[in-house]
């Protein structure tokens, strides 16, 4: 298992080599806020450990092994940040710092659950892509969030989010009737011939049209 410091270095090299050219020690030093001398030493060590390919005067690139670690950390960072901002409503500055700490300690299981809850997000709040999961993540494959309209009769789901590109009027109508993230919704009946979905939100029974039902995203639950 790589140490936190190792992970930070690999992450830094990951960022610096995204344009395709190797990372210079001076750039790594600026990014890590340490002296170039200690960077050279660390890069040499990481190269010995097989995380980096290092050529003097040219710079460092990630090996396959190093890229794997860096991608995983990056993914955890951006997932955590997305979670903090979108679900917990934290502000971006705070969320970044907290995500920097979480990325090293977040368990794989939590990572999976966050991914699942947020419907396998593609980008983090600042718009950077979240590296996709490279594992056999059965949770994600079988249980991503989906539109309410995809639930079968008798199935229940937890509302994860409302599709935000929809018109504010529709979103507001839905939230005022109680379709808000975190509530459990049970599909009682899908009326055929393009009819609405008859759903239960706690004790309330509501008929909502297909268009509305496709805005509400849920995660299947018991």
């Amino acid at each position: 298992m790589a140490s936190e410091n190792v992970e930070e270095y690999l992450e830094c090299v990951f960022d610096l080599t995204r344009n395709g050219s190797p990372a210079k020690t001076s750039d790594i030093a600026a990014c890590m806020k340490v002296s170039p001398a200690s960077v050279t030493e660390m890069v040499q060590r990481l190269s010995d450990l097989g995380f980096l390919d290092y050529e003097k005067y040219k710079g460092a690139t990630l090996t396959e092994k190093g890229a794997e670690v860096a991608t995983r950390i990056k993914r955890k960072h951006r997932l955590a940040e997305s979670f903090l901002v979108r679900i917990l409503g934290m502000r971006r500055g705070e969320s970044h710092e907290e995500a920097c700490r979480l990325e090293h300690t977040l368990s794989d299981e939590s990572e999976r659950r966050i991914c699942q809850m947020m419907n396998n997000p593609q980008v983090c709040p600042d718009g950077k892509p979240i590296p996709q999961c490279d594992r056999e993540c059965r949770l994600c494959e079988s249980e991503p969030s989906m539109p309410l309209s995809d639930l079968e009769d008798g199935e229940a789901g937890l509302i994860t989010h409302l599709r935000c590109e929809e018109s504010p009027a529709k979103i507001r109508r839905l939230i005022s009737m109680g379709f808000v993230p975190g509530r459990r919704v049970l599909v009682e009946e899908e009326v055929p011939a393009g009819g609405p979905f008859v759903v239960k939100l706690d004790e309330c029974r509501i008929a909502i049209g297909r268009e509305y039902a496709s805005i509400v995203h849920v995660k299947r639950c018991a």
Partner: protein
Amino acid sequence: MNIALVGNPNVGKSVLFSRMTGIGVISSNYPGTTVEFEEGRIVRSGEVLTIFDLPGTYSLAGISEDELVTTRLLAERNPDVVIAVADATRLAQSLVLILQLVELGYRVVVALNFMDVARRRFSIDVVKLSEILHLPVVPTVAVTGEGVDELIQVIAARKVPRSDFVVRYDTHIESLLSALSSETGDRTGPFPSRGALLKLLEGNEYFAGVFQSATIEKAVRLREEFREEHMESIEVHISRDRFGEAGRVISEVVGKLEAPPSLGERISELTLRPFTGSIILLLVLSGVFLSVVFVGGTIESLLAQTYRAIVGDAFADLAALIGGQAGLAVARGIDLSLQAILSIVIPYILVFYIVLGLLEDSGYLPRAVALLDGLMHKIGLHGRAIIPMIVGMGCNVPAILATRVIESRRERLILVTITIMAVPCSAQVAVILGTVGHFAGLGYAVLIFAILLAILLILGRLLHRAMKFEPSTLAIEIPDLSVPRPRNVLYKTYMRVKDFFVIAFPILLVGSLVLETLTQYGILDKVVDPLSPFTVGFLGLPAVTIIALIFGVLRKEMSLQLLVLLFGTANLATVLSPEQLFVFALIMATYMPCLSAFAVMLKEFGLKDTIKVTVSSVVLAFSLGGIAHILFAVF
């Protein structure tokens, strides 16, 4: 003291209002009955309590019409106490609204309604609820009056404090709130600044008015930033936290009982299953139709006999008293309007309203809406449109008023046009059955109903396309089924028939007098010959029938009696062929609405649209008549 009644749609506000004030308000078991607000006064221990009933609303976000009306009226009337009517069986929805009332600094007392139903399903710790919310909570059963007295006492004794309960929102929202309140020293009138700022952040247009423009701009920018940062609008997060808070409160006060589903619940399930639901729907709709036609028909002939027996020669005497043709015109005009009331209003419309009242109070209508929404969408309408269309089977006047439940004006206009042209009202049904149905065979009558259905489908699609209108999607709450209370049904029927009288009777009377005068002075006869190329040539009808057709503008069912008069025989089969009867009935079925419907449309939609609809319905009616005549001639 000013007291406002606020609550979600369909929580029994109107019933509670009637119970408190003794003033009748129409209440129904479907959302959106109170369109305008009602007011009543009572005196309790020397204090005058002015109570007003507001339209049902899910929130005070101020977006939809009802929300905006409620926020505005609350702010303008600034009530001393707000009675928040909560549905004990669906507490979360109600609590969210209560939390918003508390946030805005109102003194709130909770009327926990439908307690009788709730007690059967779970336990509610009312005392604890009151302790958590820091508010008085009074359990009520509005339909029986339970708890109403206690509620009035709590208010009259001025025992309603301002609650200091605070909902905490997520960190970002809280930081926006504190930033806004420290930076802007805006005075927010009677509202606590936290509550007013929350409304501003939620995008409530009314509350934008209490802030200075700099603050409003800032809020707009913050809303935008929030949306970009969280990829979700701020009101979703605010609502989420309110529902979260409501859920937490509920978990502390509500305990589950294991109650087996009651008979009502099992029937309720059947009404929503597509298969059984469709059968029930078909039974209900044909039940409405048959009861109006048969029960109404029976009552009509009874009343007509009684009327003749009572009136006797009174109108002949009146005519003689005034003298001349004027005397005849006045006497017959009054006579005919009275007959109209007895032959249409009382039998058909009264019966229809009773049936409608039963349907409304049973909570069945939203089920019909849910089942038919898909089909209605195919003809460009909202599922909710089914209610005005059912009402239209009784009379177009209340049907036009009932379209108010539809939010968009375009959609309302489409719906009214379709209802007027393709949904036969009870008078039109009487004409169809009384002419072709009676003299030419039921097959012809059925054919007319089939043509009407086809018009409904085609017209729906055409208008939908012509007006470039996408029907809004449905979101309607489906209340539990309940047994209608006769008192409420009869009361509603009384109110509606009264409304009908107020709107329709004066028009009926004036119209009858004018037409009678025209007839008595032979003016109407003068149009028979000039129009005969049209009547005889195009429609293939005897020239005199044009008089009956013109009379149809005033009153459809009268045209039937007029035919009898014009031909001097009650057996129309001897003077008109089945084809002619068919053409006549078809024109009557699609023809423009009577004058009363015209007047109501004018009031609701203005002159331009009313004339458009009227002219197109007349053109449609005569074109169909002409086409039918040509087809009969060819085949």
